[in-house]
Structures are given as C-alpha cells and as structure tokens.
C-alpha cells in the first residue's frame, strides 16, 4: 500500500515538467492538433508511397499528355502523361525528407552554437560569431557543386549541405535571445546556486528562448523545401524522373495558363504542410510559454 502511495506522488511530481505541461496545453489547442494530424498523415503517406502509389512515376504516356483531373487520374496528368498524384506522392517523400532532415541539422547546430556564443562571454562570442560570418559569406553554389562532384549525387548529402547553411540564421536568433536572457534574475539565481554553464543553457536558457526558435524552425522547413526546388531547377538537386513538390511547382508555374492543375495541386500540398507546421508551431510556442499560461 505505502509503495503505491509513493509511486503516485512521484507521478504527480513528474506531471509538472515543462514538456508534460506543454503537451497537455497543446492537446487543447484544436488548430495545433489538426496541424499535427495532417503532418502525420503526410508522413505516413510518404513512407507508404512505394506500395500505395496508383501508378509508376517513371512511366510516361506522351500520347495522353496533360489532362485535367479525371476518374483514372484523380489529380490529372502532367505534360508527359504521368499521373500527378503519383508524382506528388513521390515528390512529397523528397520534400518532407529534405524539410525535416535539413531543418533538424540546422536546429541542432544553430541552437547549440547560438546558445554557447550568447552565454559564454564576449571573447568566445566574437570568435564563434565571426565563424558564422565567414560561412555566410562563402559562395553556397560553389560549395554545393563541389560536394556533388566529390561525393556524387547523394540525396542525404544534399540535405546535410542545406542544413549546414540554414543553421547560421538560427544561431544568430538564438544568440540574440540568450543575450537578452542571460542578465535576467532567474539566470543569476541559477549561477549563484552553482549550476554549471552547460546546465544553465540546457535547463534555463534554451527552454526560455524556445518561442522564436520554434517559429523560425517552422519557417525554415518550407524555405528549405523551396531551396531544394531551386537547386534541382539548376540541376544540382534531385534529377528527373525523380521529383519534389518544389520542382513540380516550378514546372507548374511555367505552364500555369494552359494547365493550371499542375500548379494548383502541388502548391496546395506545400501550402497545407506549411499551414499545419505553423499552427503546430504556434501551438507549441503558446504551450511552452510558461508566463503566458493561464493555468
């Protein structure tokens, strides 16, 4: 009996942790939950694509050409007679993968780098931020061309390369945030309690700076997807017959007067992903904002 009582007390204590609380608040935010569900659906579809895609994405039918949505092709076909739904499912795999992997890389490096630079004091800060300046200035295109030539057309490498560029702004935002937090009383309190800098960054600074970081993350995912489209368009990213949402949109934009559905549906997929991400991001931001919380 007494054992059970102890267990239930610890469970109640765990209930007050930041993430548990946040999850509880998040679940009450209807829009954020919708966003989460849409994203999960997209990810599941992307994972299952090779088994559930209605057609073969490499198969062209030049006689058929571009047709509007019909019973056989729900979203129509492109100018090569390929099923648009199939293309979008395969394209979604690339776009979602590049969006999430590159952003995860950017988030990991950027937040760590920015937090250390912002907290460690002027000297370390100067060196770390000048490294960021250097990387900003290096010619990105040359960097990508070099990577492609040295390592071949490796998709994962492309994702990492994009992530390695996108972390720079993340680091700047994180650093600015930490600098404005580090002089506040709760940080001073943590210092005087003898917490190590690493613990202060992890336990106090990062959670308090999460708001803008989450928002910027939800902005980075679509911009990474579009960057991939730009690189693919220049011949540095995914190659036909492989495709991505961004690439489909850029082709669709060229023929939007004749075949508007080729632009509309990929555009809708990207927009829907983005809206979901943003609602989820805002929900997370609100859920993690302890001061603004009303409960």
């Amino acid at each position: 009996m007494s054992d059970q009582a102890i267990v239930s007390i610890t469970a109640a204590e765990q209930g007050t942790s930041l993430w548990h609380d946040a999850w509880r608040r998040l679940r009450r935010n209807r829009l954020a939950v919708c966003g989460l569900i849409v994203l999960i659906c997209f990810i599941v579809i992307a994972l299952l694509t090779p088994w559930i895609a209605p057609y073969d994405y490499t198969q062209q039918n030049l006689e058929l050409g571009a047709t509007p949505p019909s019973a056989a092709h729900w979203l129509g076909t492109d100018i090569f007679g390929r099923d648009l739904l199939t293309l979008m499912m395969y394209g979604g795999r690339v776009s979602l993968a590049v969006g999430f992997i590159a952003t995860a890389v950017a988030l990991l490096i950027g937040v760590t780098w920015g937090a250390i630079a912002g907290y460690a004091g002027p000297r370390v800060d100067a060196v770390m931020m000048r490294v960021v300046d250097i990387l900003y200035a290096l010619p990105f295109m040359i960097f990508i061309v070099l990577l492609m030539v040295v390592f071949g057309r490796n998709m994962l490498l492309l994702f990492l390369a994009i992530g390695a560029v996108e972390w720079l702004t993340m680091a700047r935002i994180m650093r600015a945030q930490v600098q404005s937090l580090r002089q506040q009383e709760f940080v001073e309190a943590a210092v005087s309690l003898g917490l190590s800098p690493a613990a202060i960054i992890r336990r106090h600074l990062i959670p308090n700076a999460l708001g803008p970081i989450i928002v910027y993350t939800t902005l980075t995912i679509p911009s990474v997807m579009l960057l991939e489209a730009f690189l693919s368009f220049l011949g540095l990213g995914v190659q036909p017959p492989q495709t991505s949402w961004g690439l489909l949109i850029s082709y669709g934009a060229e023929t939007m007067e004749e075949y508007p559905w080729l632009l509309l549906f990929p555009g809708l997929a990207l927009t829907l992903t983005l809206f979901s991400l943003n609602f989820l991001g805002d929900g997370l931001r609100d859920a993690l904002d302890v001061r603004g919380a009303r409960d």
Partner: protein
Amino acid sequence: MWRFIAYRLLQSIPVLVVVITATFFLVRAAPGGPFASEKAVIPEVKAALEAQYGLNLPLWRQYTAYLRDLAQGDLGPSFKYPGRSVNELIAAGFPVTAELGLYALLVALGIGATAGIIAALRPNTAQDYVPMSAAMIGICMPSFLLGPLLILVFGIYLDWLPVSGWGDMPGDKILPSITLGSAYAAYIARLSRAGMLEVMSQDYIRTARAKGLPEWQVVLRHALRGGMIPVVAFLGPALAGLLSGSFVVETIFQIPGLGRFYVQAAFNRDYTMILGSTVFLSVLIVLFNLMSDILAAWMNPRLRAQYSEH
C-alpha cells in the same frame, strides 16, 4: 560603443582573409575551368588564354598575385566577359540590385512588422489569424511562382504595370519589389509576432499598464523595442541577401542586377567574378551583421551596458 564598433571592424579583417582564401582554393578545387567549356578552343589558344590570366602559374603565385591586386582594390578581369573587369561588372550591377533590395526591404518591413504586431495584440482571434494566414501564404509562395502570377494578373490581364525591365518605364519597379519583399515580409511578420508575444507577457509591460498608460503607448514605447529583437537579428543577413541580388527575381523580370552574375559565374567557373562577388558579399555581411548587432544593443539596455564595459 565606438570602441565596440572599432573592435568589430578589426575582427572583420581576419574574417575577410579567411573567406577570400577559402573561396580562392574552393573554386579552383571544383572541376572544370573557365575555359573548359569552350569546345572549339585549340590547345595553343587555351594555353595563351591561361597565360594571359596567369592561370599557368603555380597556385600560391596566383594567390599572392590576387591578394596584391585586391589590396589595391582591383578585383581582376572577368574571364567570361572579355575586356571587362570585375570591378566594372559589380559597379554596373550593384546600384540596380541595391535599389531593388531597398524597396523590397521597405515592402517587407512595412507589411511584415505591421501584420506581426497587429496579430500579437490579440493572439488567437481573427485579428491574429487573418494577417498570419496571409503571411503563411506569402512564405509558401516561392518567388518563381509569385513573380509570374503578379505578371499575369497586373501585367497582362489588368494591364496596369509593365511586366519586365528596370527603370525603362514608369512603374516597372513595383512588381519586382513586391515579389522580392513578400517572402521577407512573411518572415518578419512571423518573427515580430513571436517576439511581441514574448514581450507582452513580461512584468514591465504589466507595470506600464498598471501606470495607466493607454494600450498604444504600452505597445509603441515599451513593447516594440524588446519585441523586435528577433526581427533585428534576422535583418542583418536578410539585408546582405537582399543586396547581393536575387537570381530568380532578376531572371523573371529581366533586371540587370548582381544576382544573375553570381549564379552564372559559379556555373562558368569565372574565378575572378566568383571571388569578386564573394569579397563584395562578405563585406556587406560583415557590415550588416554589425549594424544589426548595434541595433539589438540599442534596443536592449542590458546588452548595451555589457558592451560599454569593454
């Protein structure tokens, strides 16, 4: 403050040296050379061309020669535009790019910051959702889509504005500025909303309200400074990006700016042009990141105190 600025400018010298050195060897490590793509070039001509531009010298000699020229402000001759120097090409493209970038920034700040602040005042109401949804559409609308769309609507169907060019016809600067600025506007809207929300729950805002200040004064005089910190951090690199030109927008609207040169130079292995643009871009980045840091310090008194200590 002046010491801080001088200190930072001093720091930028090693930054520039590292950037130049890394780029110099990076571009030469990439396969292919500036004269590799011309198929009909006979070996003797190619050798003569390479000799003329000093490409037959050992790498370190090329490097020291480049640095020597650079110290005198000479970025060298372009390999792909014979008879024109990189200085001339940048000088020709930059005013156009800078003007476009400036208008785009005005569009971005005007629309973005206003929308973000309005949204943050009443979070999770229609006043929040409407401007933020518009911002989201702006983010997922890549410029290679927004540009043609604007051309189609305002240039062709309504026939209000010219579809391309820069400074040739009245009003031809409007569409490219909106196209380039709207993506940034969307970012700024999101960042300023988040920043404002962060600030509005702080104690000093409660104090300001408790003093009986009208809400608009609370927002403009107390919340705005703190709330714009994330935007300012974003603005440094964003401005540098705007001023280095946009390949997509310049291509769509046929604008003779820097962005197109930069991408073409990368593909052509136009070594001096790549290096020249990179030097130019890195100076811009150093300057604008410095400016954005100064602005952030000015907006945050705690940070200002920290800078004036050393």
